[in-house]
């Protein structure tokens, strides 16, 4: 989706201002939103949380803080999936909703769960369509749903620098359309290819792209 979240290459977004001695969270509610998002066994596909945040209308997305987006995304997924009702969200009082079969993360499971992570590599064999050193073109596609191919790289020429192996394909997975495991590559794009002759010669931007994002150059 050509949404506001796809920000690479936009200009005039203001200065970058690192905050000295920045705390991990800036308010108690941020802690709770983070933790709930992590803990919940949501009745939605892997990656849907991120896609849901991309669906926030652009003007709101820009105005919201990071964890406001998390809160919005989580609340919308809970309602969409039927786990929580809108009335419950507004009242704070539990009434109904389908919560059957959901796993509840316990405190003792937190560290092991973090340590295990959520690998998105796949053991399903898949033939690599491209090899290291090969010139490729990022496909010029404009999907209306979740994609990991940013606008600024579409149609541009790059070189495969590394084959990361077989990974689940987020573009498909986040929409609940299946894993579509395929090879993921680190693709080097010259800054001049992306931004024109005014960009410094030799500089580059590297993106991780899947087979479905690429075509032979």
């Amino acid at each position, binding site marked *: 989706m050509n949404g506001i979240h796809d920000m690479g290459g936009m200009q005039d977004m203001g200065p970058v201002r690192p905050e000295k*001695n920045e705390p991990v969270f800036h308010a108690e509610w941020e802690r709770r939103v983070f933790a709930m998002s992590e803990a919940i066994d949501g009745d939605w596909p892997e990656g849907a949380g991120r896609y849901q945040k991309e669906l926030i209308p652009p003007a709101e997305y820009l105005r919201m803080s990071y964890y406001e987006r998390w809160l919005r995304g989580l609340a919308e997924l809970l309602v969409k999936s039927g786990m929580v009702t809108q009335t419950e969200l507004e009242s704070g009082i539990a009434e109904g909703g389908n919560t059957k079969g959901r796993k509840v993360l316990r405190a003792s499971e937190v560290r092991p769960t973090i340590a295990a992570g959520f690998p998105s590599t796949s053991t399903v064999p898949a033939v690599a369509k491209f090899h290291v050193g090969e010139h490729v073109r990022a496909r010029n596609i404009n999907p209306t749903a979740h994609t990991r191919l940013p606008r600024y790289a579409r149609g541009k020429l790059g070189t495969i620098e590394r084959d990361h192996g077989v990974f689940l394909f987020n573009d498909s997975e986040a929409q609940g359309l299946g894993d579509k495991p395929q090879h993921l590559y680190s693709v080097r794009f010259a800054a001049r290819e992306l931004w024109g002759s005014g960009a410094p010669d030799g500089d580059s931007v590297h993106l991780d792209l899947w087979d479905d994002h690429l075509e032979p150059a």
Partner: protein
Amino acid sequence: MTTTRRDLLTTAVTAAGAALTPRIADAQQRTQADDHDHQVMPSDPALRTKALESVLVAKGLVDRAALDALVDAYEHQIGPRNGARVVARAWVDDAYKRRLLSNATGAIAELGYGGEEGEQMVVVENTARVHNLIVCTLCSCYPWPVLGLPPVWYKSAAYRSRSVIDPRGLLKELGLELSPEVEVRVWDSTAEVRYLVLPQRPTGTEKMSESQLAALVTRDAMVGIAQVSVSPEVRA
């Protein structure tokens, strides 16, 4: 104070956002504060969060003790000191450094770090000729096991937009002016691979121990917006 284009943009965006919600007062309060994404939070998200947590707990979907443990893990245990230990080890142990650059996930696991948002790691090395910078233009991907949760600036529209098109200008504004001879490589974390910069070891640190070296390494240097110096002004 002069009005910049940035101010006008912010005002326009704020007006559009306010039209969508009744939170005009909150929005105004936010533009009057500094440009940071976080701002002073209105009570609204705090109240909504409280309501949501009450519902999820009452329905047995989350356990409050688990939420506390998650917060504790990322607020007090998992953070950039982990990454600093990885960097310092690589500086003093060439064999480790080779493993780190060829199989980062495994080498980082040797020091006991790994897991969520670091399942597949790649470490890129800064040298006298190459400077690396990490970003996630689409969202906020960041190597949690070694750096913890990302700071606000990393998640900001300003950083996500500019880092790929004008990394040198951005770094210069942040106090890091790179020679034209140095090649800049930006790593946009568009998939589930997470990146960490191995900064250059500063000169004059030959006699330092591994733990003394680790104390010099900042989060900003491991993302690539700074270099490591012997007396860093800010230790993030």
